Structure formats: C-alpha cells, structure tokens
C-alpha cells in the first residue's frame, strides 16, 4: 500500500507543481436535468498539463491549437419536481482543445457521489398511522460529456468562456443495473490566470 502511495506522489510531483495547485479557472452553470429540471453547478479547474500545436496553413497563416488535460472538482444540484432532488460532488477529468479563434471543445468523464432526496414519502404503519418519511438514495455517480465553448478573451478581451455541455450521468447502485440521466449544462468559465 505504501509503495502505491509513494508511486502516486511521485507521479503527481512530476505532473504538478506548486503553481498548478492554484486553480486556472472557476465555472458556474445552469444544470438542467433533462434540460428543463433546474439546477446549478459550480467548479474550479486545475490544469494538469498543457501543450500547443501549430501548423502553417496554405495561405501562410499560422494555426495554433492549445490543448490541455484539466481536473475540475465540481458540486451541484438539480430539482426535478415530484421525482427527486439530486445533490452531487464530482471531480471531472477533461481533455480540451482551443483554437486560435477561441472555439473550445472538451471531452471528459467524471466520478463522484450523489445523494437524492425523494419528495413526499409516506408510510402507513401496522397501527394504521400515516407517517411522513425522509427518503433518498446514495449513489456512485459518473458522467460522460462533451463541451462546446467560446473564449471571449480572443476577440473581446474578457477572461470568460461561455460553454454548453450535454452529458449523460449514470448512478449506481440502482435497480436494473443503475439509473441514467441526461443533463445539459450552460455556463461560464472565468479564467483566473493570465496566459
């Protein structure tokens, strides 16, 4: 076990430095389970690795694509009337490509914890009394997403990226092999560092 911890620390020390423990950006988004059931999601993003690639196009203009691996701890909730309220904390790992014109695409996965709260639950006890209960479920939650964004700093010098992020989430354990959700995030990323 201690060798495993040592190995993790060693790998972490080669990929991260003190500077990178500072978050690169903050994000806030509308989080709509099945689009219309409202919620909110907040996150901070740490850059794990960044690199660039440039190409000279036929017209002689250099095309630069910035790429990065990012880690984003997030928290959020959604409210689905008469079904459940979900509260989750989920780190996400993503691969991001940003073009020189500010168009951003990211692909990623996340894994975390979700607690659901089920509204208006009652029991009829053996003595014939109606009892109100507080019920919910604990889940291991994963998500799989693609995100499309526009970095406004390129044209407007505003350190904000707007994005839209459709995703599927899968929660376990649940009857029939888990429960799947579709959600849509629409939000902004505020860049803290100036690069």
């Amino acid at each position: 076990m201690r060798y495993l911890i040592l190995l993790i620390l060693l790998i972490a020390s080669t990929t991260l430095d003190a500077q990178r423990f500072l978050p690169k950006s903050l994000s806030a988004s509308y989080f709509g389970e099945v689009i219309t059931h409202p919620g909110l999601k907040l996150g901070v993003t740490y850059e794990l690795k960044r690199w660039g690639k440039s190409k000279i196009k036929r017209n002689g203009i250099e095309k630069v694509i910035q790429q990065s691996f990012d880690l984003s701890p997030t928290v959020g909730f959604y409210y689905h009337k008469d079904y459940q309220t979900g509260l989750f904390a989920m780190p996400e790992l993503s691969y991001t490509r940003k073009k020189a014109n500010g168009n951003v695409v990211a692909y990623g996965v996340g894994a975390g914890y979700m607690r659901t709260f089920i509204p208006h639950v009652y029991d009829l006890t053996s003595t014939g009394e109606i009892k109100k209960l507080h019920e919910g479920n604990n889940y291991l939650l994963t998500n799989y997403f693609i995100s499309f964004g526009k970095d406004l700093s390129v044209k407007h010098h505003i350190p904000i990226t707007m994005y839209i992020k459709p995703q599927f989430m899968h929660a376990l354990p649940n009857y029939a092999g888990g429960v799947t959700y579709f959600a849509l995030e629409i939000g902004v990323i505020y860049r803290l560092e100036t690069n």
Partner: protein
Amino acid sequence: MKNILKSLLAIVCLALMFSSCKKQDFVFSSNANDMFHVKNGDYLIPVLVRGNTASKKILLYIQGGPGYSSLDFALGDYPEWKNTLEIDYAVAYYDQRGTGNKQGNFSQGDLVLSTWVEDLNKVASFLEKAYGAEIIMMGHSFGGDLMYRYMVAKGNTAVPSKYISIDSPVTTDSDDDTLRWVFRREFLLNTANLEISRGKRISQWNEVLQWLSVNPELKKLGGDNPFQLWNQWNKYVDELIYVDYPEKPVKIKHYMNLVFNSNYNILAYLNGNYKEKLVSRILEEEENDFLMDKLPLIQNQNILVLGGRYDDICPPEELAYVFTQIGSPHKTLKIIDYAGHTSFIDQPTEFYNTIKQFVQ
C-alpha cells in the same frame, strides 16, 4: 472565493428546503392534484391522486400491459377523464413496482404478481386512510387480471367497496389454457354474423364464416407452420375489426410534456431491456397460475365486468364466461357496443355513464 462558497451553501440549503418542505397534505378539494410516494418495504410507489377528492370516492386505476406505466397515462390524460370521471370522483394512478419512474435499489420479490398485489393493497389502504375515502378499484386489461388476483388473495380483508374490470382477459397464451381459442373462435363467428347483419364488409365476413366452418377448432397444428390457424385469425381481426377500433394515437405534445415537464426521468422510464425481462416474468407467472379456476373464490365483493363488443384481446364471449365463474352474487356484466379494447376511448359517454351508475 468566500462569497462564492457562501452563495453555493445558500443554494444547496434552498434545494434541500424544496425537497423536504412539508406539503399541505391531503386537503379535500374538487380539483385535487396530489403527487406523492407510498412506501412498501424497500419500494417507493409513486401515486397521483387527481380530481374530486371532496366526493370521498377514489377510483384506484390499475394499469394494463403488463409493464405499462400509469402516471404518463394520467399526465397525458389519455382517456380524457379530467373532464368526466375526475369531475365526479378522484382517480388515483400509480406505477407498478419496477415500471415507470422506479428509483432506488429495491427488490422485485420472488414472485412479481404477489408483490404487485401487496403493493396494490398498500396503496388502497393508504388512500382510504389519508383521504377517508371509499376505494373503488378499476383495472384495465392486465390491470383487471391483477385486480382479480387481489380479490382472491385478500377476500374479506380487501380494502375496496367495489371493483370494475375493464376489457380484462383471464385466459393466457399457455398451451394448457384451451379456453382462449374457444372464445376467440366464438368471437369471430359472432362478429361475422353481427357485421353481416349490419351490412358491413359482407363478402369479407362471408369468407370468414366459410373459413370457420372448415376449422371447427383453432388449435396449434403439427408440421412447419403450427400457428397458421391463429395467424389467420389475427389477420381477419386486423383487417376487419382493428381498422375500426385502432389505438388512439399519442400526440407529439404528450411526448414533449412527458420528457420535459413531467415527474419522469425519461431514461429510467425507457429502460426497455429491463422492462422486457419484467414483462416476460409476469406473463410466465400468469400462465403457470390459472386465474379462471380461482374466480369462484370471489365470494362477496361487488364487481362490474365491462368490455367492448369488438374487443379482440378480451372478447365479450370470454367476459360472459368470466362473469359466470365469479362466485359473488353482487356482479354486473356490461358489454359496450361499437367499442374495442379501450372502451373508455371508443365509447367515452357510455363508459362514463356505466361507471357512474355503478359507483353511486
């Protein structure tokens, strides 16, 4: 950063308040719309009670299928009861265990049918207590089968005061269930004669009569095409009866409402692989547990057996036999003319009047 965290905390607290705030429970109204869950063991049964709870009469609707969900049926108001039954009474809709909006890591039980009977009893008991109302069970198609099983299992301890079976067959597709194709043959014969007397598709119905005369028994045959007689029966029904009594189409707005504006998590709802397994378990159980033989055990309950004259899934010939098998003297048989397997859609006024007369 601190401010952001504070805001987040406030939002989370607000969300928790939304999810746990106590609703104003079970207020009697002529226009109730109460959605809640009733716990039975490890399962939370979603229930919608809508309509006139002030009437102190609740029609507990049991969905067919098996495996169809009931709440979407109510949300889309597929039978249009908002303007009929729900004006006079309240109607309770619930999703059977493992169907519709299931959530959590619950067990289905070793025998699904008996678990579903217990869930039904729990919902009925809860509604009676919560609303202080008289409960009338109303099962459609497979829902009627489940209701009969409930009546047999619970006997004198059953909750409802009355029962309504709508278009509910009792026979199954089991090879041992020889009655099914006896009734179906009779149905085709009677329908052919009726249609000819009404001057409809005379030449085609005469062909049916001729076919029936050379096939006095519709049974599985030997050889390469064992189901040829049953297939031919289905062909005649599809071509000559179904065209007049098709299923009511569901509109796009109902799908949109279900996806974006209902209590359903649509991906959990559409878990087809799981639903297929559940349905085959139920059908297997049904086939191994002959219900027809148990109907004489229904002794004292008051029941209305209702069907459509043109219902090919639950032929009136079968209903007439079911009616004779029910042990209780408190029973009524009603066959609605010009109606198929959804008599509440095909002849809504006559359906409504029949229910009203029975319930009052």
